[in-house]
């Protein structure tokens, strides 16, 4: 029965809900062009090399521009990946943001006219002279959104590449020499298998597995092969020598026990943790692991470029892009300039990242020095071969699924190549 007291409670609840609703009308931050704020978004962790370097850059920017505040919002990678086209098409777009490189991401947005053309700024600030050819590829996109040529739409601060991380203590324990050639590597893996240790850390449910396979193929390929595959400059044949070698060797390695059969369902995190725990002595993956290994590995470890191959996976890092609708473009350009300065680049290098324009002599930590000099070697021989899933949107899932089948043995390499060819042909953009 609705007593007077209950009615008071009900009214109070209604008033509360109403006021909460009004409060929640919180509108969005549209920014203004008065030159007093720089709205900056990125999705690098604050304790990562990039996070630390960019925080320093923010401080320097504010020091150089008295009266201007940097309004930084840390975003999640998934949110940016899924919502970037939508956000950039609204009044919510920031002045400067980090975005993924590649045809399917930056290329797509540039094709739609959502990104500012940075070519004039590049010439003015001389950024193109700081970047090597391989790194420049992912900064320029043509009218079809294909990387490699055309206008500049993004500036990378850092680069990434894959390498063989290996556990020196475990190698010493079993009396194996550190791998310098491909034969060294296979011999080492044989010894590990004989001692009951699975040599390679792998993750079948995410990117690591396909990166092994792609690397094996790359060891039998050349620059034009990569360009044909990634830049649509030819018609890739998945039954050619390189791909066939990659698939057959990968399946062979599973059979030989180099790659654990139980890795089919493992995630990248599991592979990394297995390496840190010392369960697998070798992990072939990217420079993005470096900071974590440096902090958490309790053993002596080293890195070496994949032996016996000129090419390896890698590219320029994520790009600074300026949305077309950005209101403070000049501030954005200044910020990019600061992040490309020697001071910030050296800081990035010293914290475990791979800078694109640092001073080699300013890198104090020897392991970081090796990381960077390996990259420079790679970059100088034009060895950056990007990633296998880039050419076709959604190719990542196909590669993961098909590679899993190779690991569990439910598919032969020949069928693998057929399926991958079908998916590539079906999804490759018409040129």
């Amino acid at each position, binding site marked *: 029965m609705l007593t007077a007291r209950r009615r008071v409670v009900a009214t109070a609840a209604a008033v509360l809900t109403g006021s909460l609703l009004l409060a929640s009308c919180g509108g969005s931050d549209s920014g203004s062009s008065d030159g007093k704020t720089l709205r900056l978004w990125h999705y690098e962790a604050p304790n990562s090399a990039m996070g630390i370097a960019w925080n320093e850059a923010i401080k320097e920017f504010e020091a150089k521009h008295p009266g201007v505040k940097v309004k930084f919002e840390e975003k999640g990678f998934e949110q940016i990946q899924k919502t970037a086209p939508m956000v950039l098409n609204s009044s919510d777009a920031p002045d400067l943001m980090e975005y993924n490189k590649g045809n399917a991401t930056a290329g797509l947005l540039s094709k739609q006219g959502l990104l500012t053309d940075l070519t004039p700024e590049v010439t003015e600030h001389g950024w193109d002279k700081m970047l090597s050819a391989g790194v420049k590829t992912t900064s320029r996109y043509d009218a079809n959104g294909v990387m490699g040529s055309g206008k500049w739409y993004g500036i990378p601060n850092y680069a990434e590449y894959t390498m063989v991380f290996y556990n020196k203590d475990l190698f010493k324990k079993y009396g194996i020499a550190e791998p310098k050639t491909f034969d060294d590597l296979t011999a080492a893996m044989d010894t590990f298998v004989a001692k009951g240790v699975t040599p390679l850390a792998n993750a079948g449910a995410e990117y690591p597995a396909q990166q092994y396979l792609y690397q094996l193929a790359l060891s039998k390929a050349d620059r034009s092969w990569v360009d044909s595959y990634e830049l649509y400059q030819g018609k890739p044949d998945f039954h050619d020598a390189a791909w066939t070698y990659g698939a057959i060797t990968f399946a062979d390695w599973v059979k030989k026990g180099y790659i654990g059969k139980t890795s089919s369902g493992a995630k990248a995190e599991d592979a*990394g943790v297995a390496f840190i725990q010392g369960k697998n002595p070798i992990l072939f993956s990217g420079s993005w692991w470096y900071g974590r290994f440096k902090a958490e590995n309790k053993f002596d470890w080293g890195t070496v470029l994949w032996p016996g191959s000129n090419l390896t996976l890698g590219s320029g890092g994520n790009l600074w892009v300026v949305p077309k609708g950005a209101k403070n473009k000049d501030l954005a350009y200044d910020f990019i300039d600061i992040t490309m300065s020697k001071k910030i680049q050296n800081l990035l290098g010293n914290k475990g990242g791979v800078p694109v324009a640092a001073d080699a002599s300013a890198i104090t930590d020897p392991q970081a020095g090796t990381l960077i000099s390996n990259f420079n070697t790679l970059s100088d021989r034009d060895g950056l071969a990007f990633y296998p899933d880039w050419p076709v949107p959604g190719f990542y899932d196909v590669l993961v699924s098909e590679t899993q089948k190779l690991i569990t043995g439910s598919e032969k390499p020949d069928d693998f190549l057929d399926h991958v060819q079908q998916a590539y042909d079906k999804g490759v953009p018409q040129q």
Partner: protein
Amino acid sequence: MTTALRRYPVLVALCLAALFMVLPFLVVAVNAFKSPAEYSQHGPLSLPGGFYVEGLEDFWQRVDYSQKLLNSVLISGCVAVLAAVLSILNAYAIGIGRIRGRTWVLAFFVLANVLPQEALVYPLYYLSKQVGLYDTRLSVIIVFTVIQSAFGTYLLSSVLGQFPREIIEAARIDGANRWQVLWRIVVPVSRPTIGVLLVFFFIWTWNEFLLPLVMLISNDNQTVSVALGVLQGQRLMDATMTNAAALLGVLPALVFFLVFQRTLTRGIAVGAVK
């Protein structure tokens, strides 16, 4: 005497089953207080050496978790109440009013939940931009009020379908109009079911991820589940922090459930009314 002894195995079996249900929670709790180094060294299923809360403190500062918690409470709370009210109104008409074409009306409402959320993303983005509600919490509240009330309408109308007619007829004869019958008779008697709806709506909305990810861009407007997404990087993830943040994020929903548990058991039984 033997019946008394026979009861205990049942209790024990149920307690074991309940423990099994709660086990993964314990894993979350164990990992929430581990340092990243411990986690990497000993794996996710080991017990933590100490009580590591620095990660949690860092995360709290980093994403302004108190703001995220507030947003989540605001959105989930409003949705719970509004969706319950909407469900009551709809269910009253369908369950007690027995309007014609009940099946079709019900299907109309159930459609809100049948439609996969991915299909709603682009249209809702477009519509909310048109009315200037893009990147506001109000848009998310409106959308989820509708989506959740689909279940509320369905459950409540089915329950009200069994509502004893005599009581309503008696009230009508006494001169109460439909509005009064609804709020003075139907709602109090249906308190357990409405309690269920409030709890479900709050918790479901609390854990919603995709639509808030798309509709709430400014960090000030984001919810707890979107903030958790920050920890999932492109290639790396922060496992211990994810567990810690999840634990924090689960607490309000848990508190809500425990508080409202009592309404699930209180309520006027039909027999008592008779």
